[in-house]
């Protein structure tokens, strides 16, 4: 019999998350549907960008979750390294593909949006490039998880990679900014929330409410999927342990 953390906690996690999941999923659907439908059907066009402004309801929340997803993985990795809490390592593993997909969505919608606005699908703009690098970090992280067979070794290695990767992702962001100033406008969402003066680049209030709803929807979507996928990872881990025990006889 191993320590209590080994067994009781994953079980408790599955129970708790199982109870939470329907609520989170329901809220996700409500927020996303209301946010996106409101944004798509009931907001006016921007006077400069025309109807393309509607892409913001996908682009900004996806970008938000691409970064926060990595941040969550970093926290989970730290918890694993300090507390040796298996659920934490598995949660980080579960979050990585979601973060990667969010990064793809942010890049894809960005490219589609950039085409009519900047006249090109892709520019080597700091923000775009940073996201590309972030995507590469996600890929490396996922690949390392897949490549290492022993669970605990994989958790340790990926956690350390996540920490080092975080530092270098931030470094790259500044390096890239130095390298090219870029076309992308600054992050205007937060200024919308701060009710700052009427600067031109501010996301105006007409767009703010559905945007925040959609952002909440993406956050909840991420949470729901992480809960679900962590359950799967816990079961997969238990499965591997059982199989190993069976082989030993």
């Amino acid at each position, binding site marked *: 019999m191993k320590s209590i953390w080994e067994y009781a906690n994953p079980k408790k996690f599955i129970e708790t998350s199982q109870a939470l999941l329907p609520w989170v999923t329901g809220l996700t659907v409500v927020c996303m549907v209301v946010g996106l439908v409101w944004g798509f059907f009931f907001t006016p066009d921007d006077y400069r960008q025309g109807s393309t402004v509607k892409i913001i309801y996908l682009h900004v929340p996806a970008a938000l979750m691409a970064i926060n997803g990595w941040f969550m993985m970093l926290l989970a990795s730290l918890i694993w390294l300090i507390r040796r809490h298996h659920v934490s390592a598995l949660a980080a593993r579960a979050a990585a593909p979601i973060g990667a997909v969010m990064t793809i969505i942010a890049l894809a919608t960005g490219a589609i949006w950039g085409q009519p606005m900047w006249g090109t699908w892709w520019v080597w703009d700091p923000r775009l490039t940073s996201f590309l*690098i972030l995507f*590469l*970090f996600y*890929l*490396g992280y996922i*690949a*390392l998880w897949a*490549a*290492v067979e022993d669970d605990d*070794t994989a958790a*340790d*290695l990926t956690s*350390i*990679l996540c*920490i*080092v*990767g975080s530092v*270098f992702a931030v*470094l*790259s962001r*500044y*390096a*890239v900014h*130095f*390298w090219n100033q870029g076309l992308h406008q600054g992050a205007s969402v937060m200024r919308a929330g701060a009710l700052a003066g009427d600067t031109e680049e501010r996301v105006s209030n007409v767009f703010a409410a559905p945007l925040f709803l959609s952002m909440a929807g993406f956050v909840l979507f991420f949470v729901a999927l992480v809960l679900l996928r962590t359950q799967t990872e816990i079961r997969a881990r238990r499965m591997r342990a059982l199989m190993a025990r069976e082989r030993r006889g």
Partner: protein
Amino acid sequence: MIALLTRDLKLAVRAGGGFGLGLAFFLILVALVAFGVGPESALLARIAPGILWVGALLACLLSLDRIFALDREDGSLDLLATAPLPMEGIVTVKALAHWITTGLPLVVAAPLLALMLSLPGEGYLWLFLSLLLGTPALSVLGTFGAALTVGLKRGGLLMSLIVLPLYVPTLIFGAEVARRGAGGLSVEVPLLLLAGITCATLALLPFASAAVLRVNLR
């Protein structure tokens, strides 16, 4: 530590150690780029700093899996781990040996290859300096990647995927120094940033590499 360093250097220089391979790869890469973009020297001169930096980076990458793989195979890595030397020391020496056998020759060869790409006269000094400052960081980062993937059977490709994004800041600032130097602009800011990144990596990353290596040898 010195004994380990000389041992690694000897192993690298001896036939089959792959001492010259990185250099040969660097030369071929430069020739291939020239074939690829055409012989027009104005264009080559413009992209020379970038090509040389990317070439040095790839040549560095190519020799990374040798850092630990051979020692792992013949079991000397396990012996090293039980030696009185701390793991951080081993990792640092390994990175240093890699730099002396791969990074330093690249730094020396780069101005010669730059000649072939008709880099303008002011650029040589800055190219040389930026590579001299940047390649130690490449070696240390590469040691981290090699330590991460040392236990894996087909770790080479995975290691490239992990290590190359880590090279981005060094590449950006290094190539920027060389490019600005060749263009006769002020290089102070990227040069300082490059030096900063190298110093920080040298100081901090051996701890990460050592931790990773300990996990892998568990």
